[in-house]
């Protein structure tokens, strides 16, 4: 997306600045995807393409309902279809709308090296500011959900914006608007949690005793949440991570290594500087030259007596 600035940033990639905080009252927003109400019609996918002017290349039939085969630089949301045989031996068709989860603690933003290329607005939306993106792919490594995709055309990273442009002017995201069954809802995060609570009670009363809300605390919660009938096993839903977290490898790379590097390099340089001003240079003396010449001459005279 572009940098509209109708919302204050609370986080900004590769920055140590204090974000502006004058507009202090911002409701945290969330999208709630009720998987149990989804019929897999892909209206959300179409709406996303239309609103965001995305036209992915037409692919080939891969033997699955999933189309296109994967998220991409111009596929920001994708219906994923999983066939699951439950304990009773019945088939369950688990359909999940995949896309950016808008983590409260975003791994992409943490990994990004370009100042301001990834931001989080006060309402919780995580957005890519494309003109600042350098195309390094660090966000791909930072993301616990395998969401960002780098374009081969312009070498920039793309993902769902949660329709930050629409939300900024009080509209709901395009996918929410298009959903015919009300499986996708949008509002304040508190409202969405309340709504999910009611829905989960209902599902439990219908026999889905493991029904629950997917709002993983390991990434500080997300601004896209799911109501799952099998909340005990999120991975049933086309590999939704059971315990998503920013990889400790990324944590080390973006955490402890940075100060260690600065200390290590600075120490080496300072050690050199202080060696230079205390012990000082090692210079060749006139005596050395005499000795050096002597060695060469002696050798010469031995060879030619």
């Amino acid at each position, binding site marked *: 997306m572009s940098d509209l600035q109708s919302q204050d940033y609370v986080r900004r990639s*590769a*920055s*140590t600045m204090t974000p502006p905080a004058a507009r202090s009252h911002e409701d945290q927003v969330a999208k709630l995807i009720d998987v149990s109400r989804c019929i897999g019609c892909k209206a959300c996918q179409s709406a996303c393409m239309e609103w965001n002017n995305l036209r992915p290349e037409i692919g080939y039939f891969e033997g699955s309902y999933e189309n296109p085969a994967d998220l991409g630089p111009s596929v920001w949301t994708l219906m994923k279809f999983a066939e699951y045989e439950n304990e009773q031996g019945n088939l369950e068709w688990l359909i999940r709308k995949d896309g950016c989860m808008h983590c409260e603690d975003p791994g992409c933003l943490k990994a990004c*090296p*370009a*100042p301001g290329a990834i931001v989080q607005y006060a309402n919780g939306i995580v957005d890519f500011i494309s003109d*600042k*993106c*350098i*195309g*390094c*792919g*660090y966000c*791909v*490594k930072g993301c616990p959900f*395998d969401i960002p995709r*780098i374009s*081969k055309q312009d*070498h920039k990273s793309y993902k769902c914006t949660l329709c930050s442009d629409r939300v900024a002017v009080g509209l709901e995201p395009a996918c929410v608007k298009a959903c015919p069954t009300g499986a996708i809802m949008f509002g304040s995060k508190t409202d969405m949690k309340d709504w999910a609570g009611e829905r989960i009670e209902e599902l439990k009363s219908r026999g889905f005793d493991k029904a629950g809300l997917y709002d993983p605390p390991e990434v500080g919660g997300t601004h896209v949440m799911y109501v799952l009938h099998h909340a005990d096993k999120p991975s049933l839903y086309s590999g939704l991570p059971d315990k998503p977290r920013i*990889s400790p*490898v*990324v944590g*080390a*790379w973006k955490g402890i*290594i*940075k100060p*260690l*590097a*600065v200390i*290590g*390099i600075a120490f*080496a*340089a300072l050690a*050199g500087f202080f*060696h*230079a001003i205390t*012990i*000082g*240079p*090692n*210079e*060749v*003396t*006139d005596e*050395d*030259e*005499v*000795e*050096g*010449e002597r*060695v*060469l001459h*002696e*050798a*010469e005279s031995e*060879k030619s007596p």
Partner: protein
Amino acid sequence: MTRPANAITRYTVVNRVNHWITAICFVLLTLSGLSMFHPILFFLSDLFGGGQWTRAVHPWIGIMLLVSYSGLIIQFWRENLVHKDDIAWMKSIGYVVTNDEEHVPEVGRNNAGQKMVFWSMTLLIPVLFFSGLVIWEVYFGAATSIPVQRVAVLIHSMAAIAAIIVWVVHVYAAIWIRNSVRAMTQGYVTPGWAWRHHRKWLRELAAGQHDKRTIRKHP
């Protein structure tokens, strides 16, 4: 160039050209790499025309460095083989850093410190190259899994920091031991320099154990 009559050739033209291509690549890689490593150094990307250009050019310079450094390995590996004398030199490191040459064992063509710089880079540059390939998004972004890429980027940054520290040591040592820089820019040292810092090498030269062209001319 003008050389004193008793000049001893330490590095040939090929040695020097190869060394300085490597050095230029290394400095460019350090600047562009650090700009993508730490936010406070992101401004260094402006030297390369901005973030996108920095990201695009860094791996190509890396390939040049690997090729160039391979040339240095071919030319210098033999004289950097480790000997028993190197242990004695390392033990006298306290005398080395205080310029107390009389208490340091006689050194051949390279001392143990120089050998450590050589072998560290010989290890680190291939590590940097291969970990760098894994995270070269444009061509190899889809070649490995994301967990592999995460490990590669961590290894790449740690190896880079190690290489930069080795480089700092290398540059300071060249400045500290006066006239070493001239050996790598103009190619020659004086007999006094060889006597003071590489006495065993000087004796070998005098005994004719090295290439005859090494000692250009002496009266």
